[in-house]
């Protein structure tokens, strides 16, 4: 099957005449020596690695535990088999009905409840089976989620069932262990303390993450009113604080703007990963893609696309999607921004502010290594887009240097100068009004704690001992507070040092609301009764008010002291009646509040008109925050960043998130030091070498990951790892790298570091080389100019054979009814990974642990392949979601000796678990490498309460069974069942697979390809459509649409390509 290779790279023996592959996976593929190395061939031919290629030190806690458990269960299994041999009798199974069956429950039928995720504020629909939520989906009515949610939001379902959640209140002795206590006793002790504080100096502090619900905020403030000096401090995530600070500087308002990406023709991202984890990235992705990333296939010659410029130090999801990307040092983000700002001012004919005068094109270009004409190109594109047609968005950890506010001011200057303010950048109408407190307030809290002027500290879902950089000195300060209560989900790093842990409900067990920004009001309702002996934070406050006769204000006092004990639910309802009750009638729904409340609960959102946007005037003096031009530090500079999966690490105990490959590095389970290939070569470092990083006395050892697209002097590490008290999954995974952050400047980037090789090795569980094919052409990415000239342009796959019918030796299958097919638009896919976790949740796909990932045994049915093209210094990236292609002539079907994988009459390539004997021939014969084998009973990793997260509509697979994408056959059955009830055929797009359902950009379309009028049929015949490895005549049911890049100077590039040169 090796005909039609584009390169014949397997046979490279010398460097003479070597042409690197157009699409490459790792930078080593760009060297001839890689291909001539015999080990390469062996490695690439290997489907699984018998053992990790090199077995190396560091933490293996989870894995060893897994093996022990496995051995135990094997023995158990054997003894059970013998026992059943003795008296061949079926096991007696009990069937237990309800005592009183709840009216709304029909066994086997899911109920959906609208609720809200307080972390991301996306509106959710929780799929609840027999009283337990099993999957989360976006609420289509919610303006932000529109049906889509991120991988992180999906994974909340596993957090709910997390075995390591705090299950009852604990009395903690400040780091010296803890013991259970009853709620009654805990309340008695705490109320006595609070009463004493209230009658004394009243210095109570509540420290929480930013709260996005009005009702909880109001209750908190009313509670604090009982204390003479009560104060609430809200932490914002460090990637957003400067954004707000910049807004205060330039516009005088403490908001985070909302960006209308759909209206922007040109976007310049200065470090902000708005497609990954900056702001509401699912919403931004949807707007950005649908607003102008899909070129019109009907009129290709006049096709238009929006353009994305990204300036960043670590390659992010946004950078990977950029048309033009500037890899720079962290300080270079500001420098390029300033140079663009100066150029924009010149081009617009306004006077160039003096602060930009030092940032000349020549100076910035020399400093950052980015050609001057590329900088002017970006500036001209921004001006050329016209007034209010672009967005400049800045922020994120990896650009958070000491001058991060200056960077924000530059972005604000650009937005105001280009007329975006009040048009694409919304700072008052729909802006995020709920932002964390300013950094000074946190600093003041710490100094107050230190000076002994805090009587009691109540932590709400906050873990500052871990989440704040240690240099801020929170831990030492906390030791000086007489009473510390942690209200949270577990006995984490902070809670261990507190006096009490009062377990809070998971949000799926609690009431709440969210008004994060103008025009969005949503409700949160419990979807199951609390699993453990937990109590809502809000109920805790109400209880204390009542028991302690605390002089709380307003509604809190009324509810707490009402005749029948008022609960948080009563409070929320009363607050809604007060706030929205009058407007209920005007909602056009129902006059009575009760009916309005019921409606709101059902819908999950209420429609509140957002205020109109207006342009705020830019305060010119804020430009003073732009620093003078500084020469860069010599040597390596460190940029910290947050992964889309792990973020700040608060949910490190979630195995789905730990095993979700990072979209860019494809690494799972660890953090690592990213370094450019060039720098690594200079230092003689290889992938997986353990290096020592030193910065002003702080030293850590961490494995190395070679990452193309990084500035030579930049090294980058992800925060959110190195947890010590999160639970048995997340403890000891990776290293906490916030130790490098200076507590006073809070710079997460631009930290000078020294790097040395330790000589040790540690194999990272990186999936990028797994399932590598023999360099067969499988992905198309073309430029807009090529698309305009001929939308069918192929960059790699054979255009001759595209979508053609080729004679086959097999008889054709017949599809009398439906025939399922899918299209995936590579232009719409941003690589965010939400589909991977949606699939995992829907299809009971297990996690396998770090060591098994190293052996290429990960079980994700849906993976996202990431390919680079161009030079390793600054490559282009294309993401290709890869799943079972449901081939018409499926190579897997012909080799199965037991007919466990067969074609059905709706075009599904079905895998029948009970027939499978695990020969793995099918996997071996699958050219797409999408089949997954259960080497072990991986399902056993879902221990205890985590069992409740299984989807009962999908078989849980045991050891020795092959599995793969089923096109969500259970969803097909379910939808067909509904249609049959109504005696009709399924409507187009009525049925959605789990991956399609959650895709924010609608990159995935699924439907009946027997019907020529369905969306999927139309897209299959799109000009950009191609199928992967068509040359093999497998005839996949999935077709892809070529990726189109809106690159400037594309004509030049095209000429280069025709001349036989590699593009770049």
């Amino acid at each position, binding site marked *: 099957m090796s005909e039609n290779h584009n390169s014949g790279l397997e046979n490279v023996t010398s460097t003479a005449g070597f042409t690197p592959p157009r699409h490459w996976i790792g930078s080593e593929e760009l060297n001839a020596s890689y291909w001539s190395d015999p080990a390469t061939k062996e490695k690439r031919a290997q489907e699984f690695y018998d053992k990790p290629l090199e077995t190396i030190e560091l933490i293996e806690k989870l894995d060893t535990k897994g093996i022990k458990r496995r051995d135990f269960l094997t023995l158990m299994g054997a003894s059970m088999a013998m026992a059943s041999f003795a008296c061949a009798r079926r096991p*007696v199974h009990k069937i237990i009905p*309800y005592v009183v069956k709840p009216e709304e429950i029909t066994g086997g039928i899911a109920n959906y409840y609208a609720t809200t995720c307080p972390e991301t504020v996306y509106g959710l629909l929780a799929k609840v089976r027999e009283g337990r939520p099993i999957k989360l989906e976006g609420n289509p009515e919610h303006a932000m989620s529109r049906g889509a949610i991120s991988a992180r939001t999906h994974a909340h379902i596993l957090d709910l069932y997390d075995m390591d959640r705090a299950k009852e209140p604990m009395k903690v002795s400040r780091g010296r262990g803890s013991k259970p206590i009853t709620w009654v006793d805990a309340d008695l002790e705490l109320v006595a303390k609070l009463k004493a504080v209230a009658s004394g100096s009243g210095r109570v502090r509540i420290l929480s993450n930013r709260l996005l619900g009005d009702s909880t905020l109001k209750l908190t403030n009313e509670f604090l009113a009982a204390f003479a000096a009560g104060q609430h401090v809200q932490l914002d995530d460090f990637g957003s604080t400067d954004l707000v600070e910049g807004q205060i500087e330039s516009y005088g308002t403490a908001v985070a703007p909302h960006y209308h990406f759909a209206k922007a023709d040109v976007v310049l991202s200065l470090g902000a990963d708005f497609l990954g984890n900056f702001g509401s990235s699912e919403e931004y992705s949807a707007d950005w893609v649908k607003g102008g990333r899909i070129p019109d296939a009907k009129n290709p010659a006049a096709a238009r696309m929006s353009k994305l410029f990204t300036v960043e130090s670590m390659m992010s999801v946004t950078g990977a999607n950029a048309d033009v990307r500037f890899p720079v040092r962290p300080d270079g983000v500001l420098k390029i921004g300033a140079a663009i700002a100066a150029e924009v001012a010149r081009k617009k004919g306004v006077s160039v502010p003096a602060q930009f005068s030092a940032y000349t094109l020549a100076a910035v270009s020399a400093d950052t290594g980015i050609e001057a004409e590329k900088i002017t190109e970006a500036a001209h594109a921004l001006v050329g887009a016209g007034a209010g047609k672009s967005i400049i968005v800045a922020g994120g950890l990896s650009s958070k240097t000491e001058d991060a506010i200056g960077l924000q001011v530059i972005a604000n200057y650009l937005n105001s100068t280009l007329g975006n303010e009040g048009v694409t950048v919304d700072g008052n109408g729909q802006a995020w009004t709920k932002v964390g407190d300013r950094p000074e307030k946190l600093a003041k809290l710490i100094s107050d704690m230190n000076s002994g002027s805090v009587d009691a500290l109540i932590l709400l879902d906050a873990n500052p001992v871990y989440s704040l950089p240690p240099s801020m000195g929170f831990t030492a300060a906390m030791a000086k507070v007489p009473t510390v209560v942690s209200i949270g989900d577990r006995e984490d790093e902070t809670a261990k040092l507190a006096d009490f842990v009062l377990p809070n409900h998971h949000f799926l067990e609690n009431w709440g609301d969210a008004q994060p920004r103008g025009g969005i009001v949503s409700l949160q309702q419990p979807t199951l009764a609390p699993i453990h002996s937990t109590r809502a934070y809000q109920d805790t406050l109400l209880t204390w008010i009542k028991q302690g006769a605390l002089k709380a204000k307003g509604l809190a006092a009324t509810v707490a002291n009402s005749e029948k004990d008022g609960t948080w639910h009563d409070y929320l309802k009363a607050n809604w009646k007060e706030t929205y009750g009058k407007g209920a009638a005007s909602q056009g729904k129902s006059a009575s509040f009760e009916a309005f409340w019921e409606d709101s609960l059902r819908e999950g959102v209420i429609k509140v008109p957002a205020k109109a946007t207006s342009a705020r005037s830019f305060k010119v003096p804020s430009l003073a925050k732009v620093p003078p031009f500084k020469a860069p530090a010599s040597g390596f500079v460190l940029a910290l960043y947050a992964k889309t999966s792990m973020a700040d690490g608060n949910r490190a105990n979630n195995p789905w998130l730990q095993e979700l490959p990072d979209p860019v590095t494809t690494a799972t389970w660890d953090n690592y030091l990213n370094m450019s290939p060039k720098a690594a070569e200079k230092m003689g470092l290889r992938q997986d070498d353990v290096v020592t990083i030193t910065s002003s006395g702080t030293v850590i050892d961490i494995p190395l990951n070679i990452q193309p697209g990084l500035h030579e002097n930049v090294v980058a590490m992800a925060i959110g790892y190195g947890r010590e008290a999160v639970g048995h999954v997340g403890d000891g995974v990776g290293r906490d790298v916030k130790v490098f952050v200076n507590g006073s400047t809070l710079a997460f980037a631009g930290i000078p570091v020294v790097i040395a090789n330790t000589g040790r090795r540690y194999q990272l569980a990186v999936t990028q080389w797994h399932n590598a094919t023999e360099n067969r052409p499988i992905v198309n990415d073309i430029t807009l100019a090529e698309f305009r000239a001929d939308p069918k342009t192929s960059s790699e796959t054979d255009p001759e054979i595209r979508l053609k019918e080729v004679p086959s030796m097999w008889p054709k299958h017949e599809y009398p009814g439906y025939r399922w097919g899918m299209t995936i638009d590579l232009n719409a896919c941003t690589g965010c990974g939400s589909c991977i976790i949606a699939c995992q949740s829907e299809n009971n796909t297990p996690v396998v642990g770090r060591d098994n990932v190293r052996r290429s045994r990960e079980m994700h049915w849906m993976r996202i392949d990431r390919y680079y093209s161009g030079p390793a210094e600054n490559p282009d990236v294309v993401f290709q979601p890869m799943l079972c292609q449901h081939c018409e002539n499926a190579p897997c079907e012909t080799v199965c000796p037991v007919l466990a994988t067969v074609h059905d009459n709706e075009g599904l390539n079905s895998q029948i678990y009970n027939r499978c004997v695990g020969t793995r021939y099918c996997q071996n014969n699958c050219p797409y490498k999408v089949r997954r084998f259960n080497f072990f009973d991986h399902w056993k990793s879902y221990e205890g309460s985590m069992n409740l997260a299984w989807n009962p509509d999908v078989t849980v697979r045991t050891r020795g069974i092959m599995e793969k994408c089923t096109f969500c056959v259970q969803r097909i059955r379910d939808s*067909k069942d509904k249609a*049959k009830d109504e005696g009709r055929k399924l409507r187009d797009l009525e049925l959605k697979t789990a991956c399609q359902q959650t895709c924010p950009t609608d990159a995935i379309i699924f439907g009946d390809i027997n019907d020529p009028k369905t969306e999927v049929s139309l897209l299959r015949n799109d000009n950009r459509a191609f199928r992967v490895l068509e040359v093999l005549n497998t005839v996949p049911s999935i077709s892809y649409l070529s990726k189109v890049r809106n690159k400037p100077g594309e004509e030049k590039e095209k000429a280069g390509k025709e001349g036989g040169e590699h593009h770049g």
Partner: protein
Amino acid sequence: MSKGLSVAVGGLALVIVGVSLASVMPRTSNQGYAPTQPIPFSHKIHAGDNKIPCQYCHSDVEKSRHAGLPSTAVCMNCHKVVKTTSPLIQQVKKAWDEGRAIEWVRVHELPDFVYFPHKRHLAAGLACQTCHGEVQTMDKVYQFGALTMGWCMECHRGRSTPSNVLEGIEAKGWPNGEGQAAPQQCTTCHY
């Protein structure tokens, strides 16, 4: 011993072990299984003598994959007034008063990898008795059908399909054109 010979001897031994195992292994079907229930509930008295429709208790059967088991509340609908002095009913009453669920022993059970929808079978016009036997005559319920795949396929292939079901299908035709008696794709039941 040469390698070939040892393989042959080993193979023979395996065959012997296999055959002897097969002779003592239980049948995969549990047909006839009639476990003793915690409270000896009689379907004969309820569904037979008193003619209570099956769906009065198994109320999900037309709506869902599962027929469903009545909650204790359903028992108490009648037994608050009927036969309150019977010691067996008092057992039910006790469980009800304590809010404790009654743990019945499951009679009909399919493996985890089979998805059988009651709903679609009822919609096709099958009577409960076709698969479950004359439950209204059973004092103690036993497994009437074999519940093996071959047993299912007999009907799906049209061989043992009740005539009213076949006629109904012929008259209506399936909306997705699956044709003949009933779908026979692997994915109809296995996923």
